[in-house]
Each structure stands twice: as C-alpha cells, then as structure tokens.
C-alpha cells in the first residue's frame, strides 16, 4: 500500500509538473508573442499655438507611458513606439498629421487630436483611411457621433455634464439669475455658452438675464473690462464663464478687479490649477473626469509620477500639475496597448488593416477598462462612459462635491 501510495504521489507530482510547465510555457508564449516587433501608436497634440501648454504636457505624459511600458517588457514582447506630431491646434495641420501617421508611419491607432475643431476635420479622414482616432479633450456635442465607426472621444459630452453641474450650482448657492459670458472664437466654448447652458439653465428655472444679448470675447483678448462692466450691470446671482481656462482667467481677474465677486459655473474647460489662483475667494463650479488631487489610487500614482517630469520641462510653468487631458491621453494609449495585448494583433506590415479593425472593435466593445478615475467604456456615439465629478474650486484647491456616471445606467461606471 505504501509503495502504491508512493507511486500515486509520484504520478501526481509528474502530472502537476508537466501541467505546470505547460501553463508556464503558454504564458511565456503569450508574453513573448510579439517579440522583435514594434507596436506603433501615433499621437496628435498641439505643442505650439493656442493650446501649447496642453500639447506639451501631453507629450511628457506619452513619453512617460512609453518608457513605463517598454521598461516593463513592452507589449507582449514588442517595443512600444509612440510617434507624436504637433498640429499647432490648426485643423489643416491636424489632418496632415493624421495622414502622415497613418500613411507614412503606419501606426495602428492615433490618440488625439485635442480640440473639437481639429476633430471635426480629422475624424472624417480617420474614417476614410480606416484608423481609430480618439480625442483626449474634444467635448463639443456630437462630434464623434457624426463620424462613426472610427472616431472615439475619451471625454464626456458637455451636455451631459451640464445637466448635473447646473442643478448643483443652483442648490449650493441659491442661484436664481445668471449672466453668461463666452469665448466666441472657441467652438466648444461658444456651443456651451450659446446653446447648452442657456437651455439647461432655463430648464432648471434659472433666469438668464442677458439671454437676448449674450456677452462674448475672442480667444487672446487681454482686455474684457467692457464686457465685465456690462456683466456687473445685470447684477446676477452667479456668472457662467464658458471659455478655456487660459481665457477664463482674464475674465475672472477682471471680475475681481471690478468687485463682481459671484459664484462661477462653467464646463470642463475651466479645470486647471492656474484658474484657482486668479481669484481664490470666488467659488468655481465645473465638471471634471480627472483633476490633480483626486483620491483614487491610480490617479495618485499617476500624478505623483508625472508631476516631477512636467516640472522638469523648461517650456512649462514651474507649478504645473497634470491636467484632465493628460489623464485622458494616458488612458487612450493604455487602451490601445491593451488592445494590442488582447485582441490578437500581429503588428506585421501585411496585417496593418486587419490590426486597425481589431483595435476599433476592441475599443467599441471595451468593458470596465481600468481608468484613472474608475472604469471606462464607450457608448454607441463613441463618447466615453466614465465617472465624472462636480468639483468646486476655492482657496486654491479643487474639492470633489458630487460624482455621477455619464451613462443613465450607473452600473456602467461600476457604481
């Protein structure tokens, strides 16, 4: 019996060894399936022009991600190469960049472009070529929807965000009347300022005092005193500032100078650390899917690794912090890398078209991708389904006041 027992044990041992080896080697095989190849990803960011700061921080973020992935053994053994192109936030240059990335650099997918104006011209070209293009910042309603199936945006439509932001703003500050000022030259800011905000404010029973005469200025204007004087004459309970933060800062400073200290509400474009310094005593309410100082583990690690790298760059402000768009582009390329690992991509030149289709389908069916602020997936319009936060900026910090899923079904965000 003892002998028999010994035999059984031996057989069991052998069997488990063989099995273990087999499992190990299949893992090994998968981990090295793409060894010697290269996973080429493209990115279109505005490193010069109006949005240079965002383009430059995006560049640092992507270089960090490329290094992290390659140091950890690459993508199933393949080297990750991210080719970054500057479009100067000029739509014509963005489409040229996409064509170059797709045609000459043979990338599998593209992260970017940043602005909605650029997306409007790049997405149709992406569809024509058949390559995934995912914007890190565009939030003008319906831009990806009009360019399915290749266009995606890792952002939430401003319309959805405003539907939660406005009621919160009304409740918190007891707002009954507002006046609106917006940047007429910026497509997203103008859409939010002239269409989305007036409609949602009215629906929430807030009176827009200058509904027939919305105040505007142009990107780059340094003097908005006339507009702010007019704003003050309405004596509103709160002010809607629809502009990119760099422009909004000018408005907020002028408001402070003229003694118009009122709560401010706006869109995701306001989120930045710079805007908090313009008038720390004025509360700013805005939606965000990410902000530096966010509490999740992934976000903390991201911010603590990226911040020192950003501050080392000589062409960025000394106190810069990672922005929502850095988080978004980090997630986008991470999704592409996941697709390359799991969707059976070969990275062979002859399979380029098939690989691009695989990435597209992977993105469309993505479920519970581990984003920095929670799970991320895409809806039928190509826009991200993710958690968003209503944050209040006051005394130099953003604080999370409320969070909600961008999808009607909260389970989609893991809530």
């Amino acid at each position, binding site marked *: 019996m003892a002998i028999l027992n010994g035999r059984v044990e031996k057989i069991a041992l052998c069997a488990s060894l063989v099995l273990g080896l087999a499992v190990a080697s299949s893992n090994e095989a998968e981990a090295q399936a793409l060894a010697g190849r290269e996973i080429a990803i493209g990115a279109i960011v505005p490193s*010069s022009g109006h949005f240079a700061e965002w383009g430059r921080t995006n560049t640092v973020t992507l270089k960090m991600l490329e290094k992290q992935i390659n140091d950890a053994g690459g993508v199933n053994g393949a080297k990750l190469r991210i080719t970054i192109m500057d479009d100067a936030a000029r739509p014509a240059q963005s489409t040229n960049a996409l*064509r170059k990335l797709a*045609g000459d650099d043979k990338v599998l997918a593209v992260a970017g472009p940043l602005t909605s104006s650029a997306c*409007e011209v790049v997405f*149709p070209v992406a569809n*024509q070529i058949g390559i995934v293009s995912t914007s890190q910042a565009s939030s003008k309603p319906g831009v990806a929807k009009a360019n399915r199936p290749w266009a995606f945006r890792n952002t939430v439509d401003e319309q959805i965000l405003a539907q939660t932001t406005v009621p919160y703003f009304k409740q918190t500050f007891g707002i009954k009347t507002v006046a609106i000022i917006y940047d*007429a030259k910026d497509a997203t800011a*103008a859409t939010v300022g*002239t269409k989305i905000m007036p409609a949602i404010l009215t629906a929430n029973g807030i009176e827009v005092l200058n509904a027939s005469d919305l105040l505007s200025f142009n990107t780059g204007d340094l003097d908005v005193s006339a507009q702010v004087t007019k704003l003050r004459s309405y004596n509103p309970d709160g002010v809607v500032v629809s502009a990119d933060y760099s422009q909004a800062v000018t408005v907020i400073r002028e408001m402070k100078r003229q003694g118009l200290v009122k709560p401010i509400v706006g869109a995701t474009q306001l989120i930045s650390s710079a805007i908090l310094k313009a008038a720390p005593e004025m509360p700013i309410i805005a939606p965000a899917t990410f902000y530096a100082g966010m509490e999740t583990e992934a976000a903390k690690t991201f911010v603590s690794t990226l911040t020192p790298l950003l501050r080392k760059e000589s062409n960025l402000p000394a106190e810069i912090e990672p922005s929502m768009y850095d988080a978004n582009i980090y997630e986008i390329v991470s999704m592409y890398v996941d697709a390359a690992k799991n969707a059976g991509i070969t990275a062979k030149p002859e399979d380029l078209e098939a690989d691009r289709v695989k990435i597209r389908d992977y993105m469309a069916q993505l479920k519970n991708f581990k984003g920095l602020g929670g799970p991320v997936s895409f809806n039928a319009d190509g826009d991200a389904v993710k958690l968003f936060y209503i944050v209040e900026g006051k005394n130099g910090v953003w604080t999370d006041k409320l969070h909600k899923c961008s999808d009607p079904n909260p389970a989609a965000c893991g809530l």
Partner: protein
Amino acid sequence: MISTYHAALLADSGILMLGALSVYIILATGQLSLGNAGFMGIGAYLASYLTVEAGLPLTLALVLSALAAGMVGIVIGFPALRLRGIYLAMATLGFGEMVRSFFLNFEPMGGAGGFSGMVHVSVGYIWLWAGGILVLVTLLERSRLWLEIRATHDDETAASLVGLNTTATKIGAFGFGAAVAAVAGGLFAHHHVYIEPANFGFDRSIELVLAVILGGSTVAPGALVGAVLLVLLPETLRFLADWRLAAFGTLLVLVLLVRRQGILDRGLFRALTFRRQAS
C-alpha cells in the same frame, strides 16, 4: 502613387495658392487687402450650402459662389477707393472680421458649431481650378489690361491723367480677387468637409498676404512659390519639435531680408522661363 499625406499637402498648397492669388490681384492695383479670408468664408459657406442643401454639383456651386463673392468684392471696392495704404488695410481687416462674426451668429449654417456634410474632392480637382486660375492670371499679365493695372499701381494720378479709368480698374480688381478667394474657400470646404467661422479669421488673411510677400508680389507664379513654401516648411521643420515655428519665422525674416520683393520676381521669372526682356 503619392501617399495620402503628400496628396493632402498638395491640396493645401493649391487652396492657399488661390487665396494668395486673390490677394495678389488686388495688390497689383496697389491696394492691400487684409480681409480676403472674408471672401474665402463667403465662398466656403455659399458653395457648401449649394452642394449640401440645394444639391447642386460642386463646379456649378463654385462658379455661383465666385460670382456672388465677386459682387460683394465690387461693393467693398467702392468705399475702398477713398482709402489708401494702412487705412485700406484696416478697413478690409474690419470687413474680414465682420464676415467671420456674421457666420458665427448665422444659425442656419451652424453658427459657432460649424457646418458639415460636404463630399470630399480629389487633389486633382483642386489643382484643375488652381492651375486654371493661375494660367488665367498669368495670361492676363501679358494683356493690355494688366498694363493699366500696373500703371494704376505705380502712379494712380498719372494713370488717370493719361485717360485710364483707375476707378474701374481698382473696383474690378477687388471683384476678381474676391471671386478667386471664394473659389479657394469653396475648395477648402470640400477638402476639409467641415467649416467653421474660425477657419476664415484674421490669421487666414495674414497667411494669404504672407504667401504673396514671401513668394513674390510682382508675378502671379509668386503666389505658387509662396503657397508651396508656407505649406511645406512647417511640415519639413518638424524635426525641430518645439522650435519649429521659431525656425519658420526666422526663415521668413531671412528671405525677406535677402529678397525684399519675394523669392520670385520679374527678373528671376524671366530667367526661369527663358524669355528675353523686351527691348
């Protein structure tokens, strides 16, 4: 077979060249227009409306929008007669901004949200127009009419004293320039298949003038040289990364220091085309 990237650059050059030609035609009479992006915008919006909403074929839409913009150009030409130099530049700049603001508030064509739905055109079609208009202007330069234009440019008073109708020349140039700009705009709209008012702002007007000044403001093909350079330089300087635009600016200043009249002038053009100076 060229890559789609190079084809797109070629298309951009063609459109920019047409825009530059529109500035050149007006400049030939001694009037500097900083508002040609406005004419381009009119052409872009009108042509897009005609193809998308009215269902007209593109060529017909371009011709119609060129005619319409030409009329606007003539209307603008009248007040422009009373202005010279920097004052005219300022007035036309105002016109350009006026057009941009108009489309920004013009909801039927999308307002700030922009307008789309156009069908993409091939680079060949763009160059059919660009080449055709370039040849037309070059031929025009050999005509008696152009001599009148040059006389108006060189000395308006003397030209009118010898019996030339400088008023008609100047207004006609505005109309023709506006029509060419409108074609550029229409092609722009059907190349990018999306337009928004910001596409036709002050920067665009400056880009058009820059192409003429850089390429050569005394011969029509100067617009071609300027346009190709303005499209290709920022692309070929990509390896300089953050310094790209600074290097681009430096090159522009250098070119203008060395050749104030632009890269291509009458002398060089003659040498290149093996034509002897008429004695």
